[in-house]
């Protein structure tokens, strides 16, 4: 221990030894008291400028170059300069070892808070939540990004910045539609395998001989092709396909190998972030719950001084600030606040349940083991299912949630339900639904393409609750798809309930 007083640190200055001691103590308490299970940690100290850098390239330490990141940087810098937004104190990367960025400007008290929040809270969540375990590959992501950055830089050298930019622009436009939602994506292949594939492609490019094309096709071969019916065609292309980027990468006829690889890079990155987007409330809630609990434990054990604790609490309450809907500062539901509240509520339900809680949560109410209950919740849920499962009437009353029904053709909102006996179920369902990424993003799929005919690519947009796509951005995105596909692309809007066709839009109507 550092000093006679037994404090982990005193004063606001930090050095590497204090950081390391703080981490070790916090980790020991976390394992012992909360049974957390974490990846090894790598802490990197960065300046505020570097934090801005990281912000603008989607929070990753290594990223290829693209103009849109420059634009985002300008925007973030502007907000920061105006004081409109403070920078995050930390940034954490889901990788193994787990990388935590600490800002050099933080005081030691903040560094301790951030260590508990990111190095333990987020880290535990990344390692244990089923989405991350099944869908992302924490060990491989950094080396993949490194490869991606180098690969795109090489492409720029060889094919020119403009050519690469064109592909990246189009791929970025489809990032939302570039993830597998329902089946697990293939594991990232190792560097060696990728190297092999690339070499083979390069060999094929080198040894391409146009003469082969002039050979007459074999008789039986063409016959088989002629019987190619619509259903067979769909089967062979595994249609319908929700992952547009994947489909274009594999099936577009005009792309060169390097262009496919670029699309693949964008797709892999989109897929990597998909679990994070589904677990915002849980991830931040878990980290906030962990830092709050740990900091209080350390304070109780006399390891943190009162001054530092006050600073920590002040920052904590800033983070979980949640204004009401009519407050000018309101900008949506704060995931930190909602997550923390729900997790503390679970703690309460399992230790001191009311009769209502026993009614609503028979299996966890009063079980006394809030640690295990929380560990289970962290491991097995995403935001949508977590809220559907655990949002209690107590919390709905505390937050005074209400549901507004909003129909486009009605000049009024209607209050559908509030925090009362009749409303609990529907408030909970509506809130859970709003966190369901799969349901709240437009559902667009490739339904048909005739590779041997006119190569017309047909997309289908399933319109739910009458919500159609915004026209301007839809047309622009379709134009991007056309760039990758090379032939006509059309999209049909189909009502999800009735199956009726609402309208159709094709690139031939849009023009360049």
């Amino acid at each position, binding site marked *: 221990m550092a000093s006679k007083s037994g404090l982990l640190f005193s004063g606001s200055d930090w050095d*590497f030894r204090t*950081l390391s001691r703080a*981490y*070790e103590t916090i980790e020991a308490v976390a394992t012992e008291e909360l049974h957390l299970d974490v990846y*090894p*940690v*790598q*802490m*990197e*100290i*960065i300046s505020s*400028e570097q934090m801005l*850098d990281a912000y603008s390239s989607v929070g990753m330490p290594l990223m290829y170059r693209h*103009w*849109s990141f*420059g*634009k985002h*940087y*300008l*925007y973030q810098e502007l907000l920061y300069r105006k004081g409109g937004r403070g920078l995050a104190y930390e940034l954490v990367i889901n990788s193994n070892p787990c990388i935590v960025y600490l800002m050099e400007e933080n005081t030691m008290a903040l560094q301790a808070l951030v260590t508990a929040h990111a190095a333990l809270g987020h880290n535990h969540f990344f390692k244990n939540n089923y989405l991350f375990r099944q869908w992302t590959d924490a060990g491989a992501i950094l080396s993949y990004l490194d490869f991606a950055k180098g690969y795109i830089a090489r492409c720029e050298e060889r094919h020119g*910045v403009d050519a690469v*930019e064109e592909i990246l*622009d189009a791929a*970025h*436009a*489809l990032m939302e539609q570039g993830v597998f939602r329902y089946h697990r994506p293939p594991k990232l292949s190792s560097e060696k395998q990728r190297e092999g594939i690339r070499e083979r492609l390069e060999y094929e490019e080198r040894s391409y001989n146009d003469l082969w094309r002039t050979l007459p096709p074999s008789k039986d071969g063409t016959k088989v092709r002629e019987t190619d019916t619509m259903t067979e065609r769909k089967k062979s292309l595994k249609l319908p396909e929700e992952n547009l980027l994947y489909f274009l990468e594999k099936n577009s006829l005009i792309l060169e190998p390097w262009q496919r690889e670029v699309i693949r890079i964008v797709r892999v990155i989109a897929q990597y972030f998909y679990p994070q987007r589904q677990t915002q409330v849980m991830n931040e809630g878990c980290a906030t719950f962990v830092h709050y609990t740990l900091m209080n434990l350390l304070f109780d054990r006399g390891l943190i001084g009162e001054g530092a604790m006050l600073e920590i609490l002040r920052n904590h309450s800033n983070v979980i600030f949640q*204004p*009401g*809907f009519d407050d000018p500062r309101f900008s*949506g*539901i704060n995931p930190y606040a909602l997550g923390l509240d729900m997790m503390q509520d679970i703690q309460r339900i399992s230790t001191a349940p009311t009769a209502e809680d026993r009614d609503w949560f028979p299996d966890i109410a009063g079980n006394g083991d809030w640690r295990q209950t929380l560990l289970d919740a962290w491991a097995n849920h995403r935001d949508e299912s977590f809220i559907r499962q655990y949002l209690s009437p107590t919390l709905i009353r505390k*937050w*005074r*949630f*209400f549901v*507004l*029904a*909003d129909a*486009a053709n009605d*000049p*009024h*909102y*209607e*209050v*559908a339900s*509030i925090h009362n006996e009749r409303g609990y179920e529907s408030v909970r369902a509506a*809130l859970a639904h*709003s966190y369901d990424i799969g349901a709240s993003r*437009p559902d667009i799929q490739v339904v048909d393409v005739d590779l041997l005919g006119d190569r017309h690519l047909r997309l289908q947009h399933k*319109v739910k*609750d*009458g*919500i*159609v*796509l*915004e026209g301007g*951005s*839809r047309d*622009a*995105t379709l134009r991007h798809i056309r760039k990758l596909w090379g032939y006509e692309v059309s999209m049909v809007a189909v009502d999800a309930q009735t199956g009726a066709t609402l309208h159709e839009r094709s690139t031939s109507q849009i023009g360049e």
Partner: protein
Amino acid sequence: MPIFIDRRLNPKDKSLGNRQRFLRRAREELKRTIRDQIRTGKIADVDAEHAVSMPARGTGEPSFNDARNSGSRQHVLPGNKHFAPGDRLPKPGQGGGMGSAPGRTESEDDFRFVLSREEVLDLFFEDLELPDMVKLNLKEILAFKPRRAGFAATGSPTNINVGRTMRNSHGRRIALRRPKQEAVDAVAQEIATLEAKPQNAEMRQRIVALQEELERLERRRKRIAFVDPVDIRFNRFDAQPVPNANAVMFCLMDVSGSMGEREKDLAKRFFVLLHLFLKRRYDRTEVVFIRHTHEAQEVDEETFFYNTQSGGTVVSTALEEMHRIVEQRYPSREWNIYVAQASDGDNFVTDSERCIALLDEQIMRLCQYFAYVEILDERESHIFGATDNGTSLWRAYSAVKLRWSNFQMSRIATAADIYPVFRQLFARQPGYQKSGERGG
């Protein structure tokens, strides 16, 4: 034990490449914005940072998004105070700020950011078609000349100051009592003499002692280097700005009705370019605006570019006015005088003679450089571009040009034609240029 990596010293500006890519992409639009800002702003303001708004075209990042004004949906909001189920609330105006509407992308595309001075100048230069050397020249902030300024402990090997270094080394050797070569030689000599003599026990003992002494001395010499890195001193150089003088720039323009929006825009760019050049060269640059019709007056920049006056065109009035101002305020001993004149070439026929006389006898002796542009219609430029005949003013000035090497004139129809008027100015070597300066 976590691994710590200190990244604070990593190279900065990691996002610079992204910024450049972004600016390149938005180039056309930014260029237009800068051009508009130059058109409406002051000449002297070109040479600074400019705030511009996010260009709309070329920087959009489309994706499939739900249209906000379609279908039906539900918003869950916290903080209900008095609503009951079934309450109906009027929607706020267009857009409806309630709920976590996906409006963020719009606001992100609608903000202003700051272009650095360099970036602004790049955009400004783009269709002036300046040679690269000139661009560099204009962008460079100040000319510096290295000047000796004491000594430093670090530096490049070519700058080692031997005298200083040896003095330090000598002092250190004395302080640390490094045995001198003579002392070593003396001991060695003594050993040699002793060894030459017949031996006895006492002498052998003496020799051993001497040999030990010799060894000690040698060891000490080895340990205390003759010249140690701490002794080395380098000549230090300070970058000293090259002394500059004052310059005044006269902008002369015909503002009679025949000068339209396009003509004034071209004229302004012509003035801006000269101003940029002068600002680089001189500590202090002042600008005097003189507009003229059939009479001339000194005005402020605003009036110069935006007010029109009706009347005929008598160019000599402007030259006279300029001469008067020079006499009054800018004695040519203390000021470098530059004149930029823009006109569409109209002049009273009889006045051209008077202009020639004024220039030849008075003005050309005073100025460093006189640049005249005649702004043509793009169609006219095909007709007049090559020939020497033209407006009466053009013919008159052509005569002046023959006699004065610092007089330049050109007919311009587009921005790219401006530069040749200044070619001679920019071609001058700084050294030659300075010899022409007065006072300072």
